[in-house]
């Protein structure tokens, strides 16, 4: 009797795990089909430039202040930490290059994507989810308007364009923040700061940061749109979709960052 109970307990655990895994595989497959459809439709007419510009404003322009603020303070923190650490080795002259390389290669793309994800990605998921549950998506379909083309394509294109631009802004403001703290507050030499920075940073660093930011922009828009598209019913459904979108995108950005860094380091350096 006891053996039978244990058998059924294990059976339930394994079948539950299998069911969960099956659901996960299905969701991943759906998400890939979704993004392929979006990308295919973004390359084929009709093109909706007005909607893309609208989304560029929402995702890009409206994220400017938060990205600039975070960028400035990140640069400032890097200056303080960099100056302290490098002073242990008598190498404070390298503070400028350390700040610039950290920002351009790594922190700029990652933190910008995380900021855009938190500010615009979550809003995107919530908006699309509400549109779905309040039959606005059905209303579009009933008017022969393809919701993928009308809602998803502009957001994904805007995400891919916005994040690299915002990353560039993050990098510039970050370097300016680092310069201000390093030179004006910590007393580093302005000339050394600038010359070390310009000699350390190469085109390849900028290009690798740019490539990363394109992928991160795609991830944020893809996950946010997909989670809104597959949102469950009611306020709980929107809540779950939004939380899941932010968590999934954030994790995906960090995981992808590792792989991209590995690949780009091998390719470029």
């Amino acid at each position, binding site marked *: 009797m006891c053996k039978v109970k244990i058998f059924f307990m294990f059976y339930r655990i394994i079948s539950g795990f299998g069911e969960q895994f099956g659901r996960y595989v299905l969701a991943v497959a759906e998400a890939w089909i979704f993004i392929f459809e979006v990308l295919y439709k973004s390359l084929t007419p009709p093109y909706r430039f007005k909607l893309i510009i609208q989304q560029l404003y929402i995702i890009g322009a409206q994220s400017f202040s938060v990205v600039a603020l975070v960028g400035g303070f990140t640069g400032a923190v890097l200056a303080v930490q960099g100056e302290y650490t490098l002073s242990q080795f008598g190498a404070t002259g390298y503070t400028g290059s350390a700040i610039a390389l950290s920002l351009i290669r790594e922190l700029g793309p990652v933190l910008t994507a995380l900021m855009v994800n938190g500010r615009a990605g979550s809003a995107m998921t919530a908006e699309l989810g509400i549109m779905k549950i*309040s*039959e606005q998506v*059905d*209303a579009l*379909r*009933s*008017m*022969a308007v393809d919701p993928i083309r009308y809602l998803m394509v502009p957001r994904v294109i805007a995400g891919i364009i916005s994040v690299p631009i915002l990353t560039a802004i993050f990098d510039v403001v970050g370097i300016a923040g680092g310069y201000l703290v390093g030179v004006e507050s910590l007393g580093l030499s302005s000339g050394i700061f600038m010359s070390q920075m310009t000699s350390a940073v190469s085109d390849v660093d900028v290009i690798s940061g740019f490539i990363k930011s394109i992928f991160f922009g795609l991830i944020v828009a893809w996950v946010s749109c997909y989670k809104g598209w597959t949102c469950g019913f009611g306020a709980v459904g929107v809540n779950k979709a939004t939380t899941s979108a932010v968590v999934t995108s954030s994790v995906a950005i960090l995981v992808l960052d590792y792989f991209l860094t590995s690949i780009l380091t091998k390719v470029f350096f």
Partner: protein
Amino acid sequence: MQVVDGSLVAVVGPSGTGKSVLLKLITGLLEVDAGEISIDGYIVTGNRGAAGREFVAKKMGVLFQAAALFDSMTLFENVSFPLEQRQELAPKEIKERSLEYLWNVGLKGYENKLPGEISIGMRKRVGIARALITEPKYLFFDEPNTGLDPEVGQGIYELIIKLHKRFGFTGIVISHEIPEIFQVCSRVIMLYEGQVQVDGSISEFLDCDKPVVRQFIQGTADGPIQLNF
């Protein structure tokens, strides 16, 4: 089930019986598992590509249960949206026609309001104007009175009658409100568990002796209709 041109038909039945699903099947928002739907001889089932969608959209307009207005657009933009998507009219004509239809549903002066700034009754009026603006041959009303006060609901029924007289569309009104719906429609189709229980005039519906129909008309809890609560 067939619908005569220019008529107003009520599709009634208890909640969860498939009325809204029927609407979504006809308008192509859901795909049928079996059977066939043809609109003016054009078989729409299994033909949901771009051409099929265009055909259905040209022939049909839908007022959704909660109006389904686009939150980010003004009332004017909501009403003009279907015309702008078609790109068949000049911007000036689109503007004139959109204003005319908004005024037709009694919303003069509300053009620049957002859906969130007006009542649900007004939102339904805007939904009707948006569904009607392309002058479709068939107009679907999914529970037009849901969530409305009785007097506001009566106003919506009167608006449907007025617009039907003026535009002559074929209307299918999904509802579970009897006898209120009888003032709008001359024919009643009752659905229960996805099957047509009765299809006829108001008197035929009221005289039907099927237990399911009798229970629905009398509004009693005892009978074959399963109440899921």
